[in-house]
């Protein structure tokens, strides 16, 4: 995409995303073209033992597009970052895999999603996970803070993708791994910029 996105466009995109995900925070059911909740977790072949560990309201809040954990291990002791953690299901699973010596941190821009993530954390009793409000474009962490960075269906929503990837690289330790699931455009994007912005959070 060579066309620049103006600040006005950015504001519209952000408003669209926050509006949609405010609803998703209550329940993702029916808001996506693919399965969400426990059906989503099973459809994407998450580890059944991990799915079992999640209380019903936590599993029901899941809306990812892939299983980032299928791309590589989260080792005990690892520090994991989840960019665009939403209701935090992946963050909580990462925290389980990293165990008490490790930790998982989730960041998101939608306050309602972060509130849902905190509630989910409380329901699972997982202590080595935390959530904070931040954008992938500007991460509030020092260089080399994490062993693994995951993201699930989020980067497609962020206007400045190059910044997110550079930030992910910056906060990874040398040897660190990036594991992402996301939507790719299969065709050329709509020519009309107004249509493209409208379709951003489709």
């Amino acid at each position, binding site marked *: 995409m060579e066309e620049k996105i103006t600040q006005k466009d950015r504001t519209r995109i952000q408003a669209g995303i926050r509006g949609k995900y405010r609803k998703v925070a209550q329940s993702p059911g029916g808001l*996506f*073209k*693919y*399965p969400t909740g426990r059906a*989503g977790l099973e*459809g*994407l072949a998450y580890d059944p033992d991990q799915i079992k560990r999640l209380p019903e309201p936590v599993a029901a809040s899941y809306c*990812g*597009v*892939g*299983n*980032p954990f*299928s*791309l*590589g291990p989260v*080792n005990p*002791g690892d520090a994991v970052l989840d960019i665009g953690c939403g209701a935090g299901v992946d963050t909580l699973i990462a925290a389980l895999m990293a165990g008490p010596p490790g930790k998982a941190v989730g960041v998101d821009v939608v306050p309602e999603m972060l509130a849902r993530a905190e509630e989910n954390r409380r329901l699972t009793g997982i202590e080595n996970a935390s959530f904070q409000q931040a954008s992938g474009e500007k991460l509030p962490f020092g260089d080399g803070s994490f062993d693994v960075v995951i993201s699930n*269906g989020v980067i*497609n929503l962020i206007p400045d*993708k*190059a910044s997110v*990837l*550079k930030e*992910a*690289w910056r906060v*990874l*330790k*040398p*040897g*660190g*791994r*990036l*594991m*992402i*699931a*996301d*939507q*790719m*455009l*299969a*065709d050329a994007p709509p020519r009309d910029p107004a249509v493209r912005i409208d*379709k951003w959070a*489709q």
Partner: protein
Amino acid sequence: MLQKAGFKEVEQVTETGFDSSPATQAMLFRARKLVLFDLGKNDPAVQDAMATYQSFFETVYAEGALDRKTKHLIALGASLAAGCEP
């Protein structure tokens, strides 16, 4: 875009089938931040040597009978004793 951000070993692993629209496809990607990077990036012989060294480095420091932290501390002690420059 991943490579421009500094990542190496970038792989588009597979589709997931959870497409959000007819115009998009959900994919799984992984990439790595190498331990040693940007050295001799235009020289294939150097790149080959660096990749081999990288692989050796990761094997040596992988979790095993000793955990990663212990291994790094031993290496640090050894390099200090040997007077290695950073």
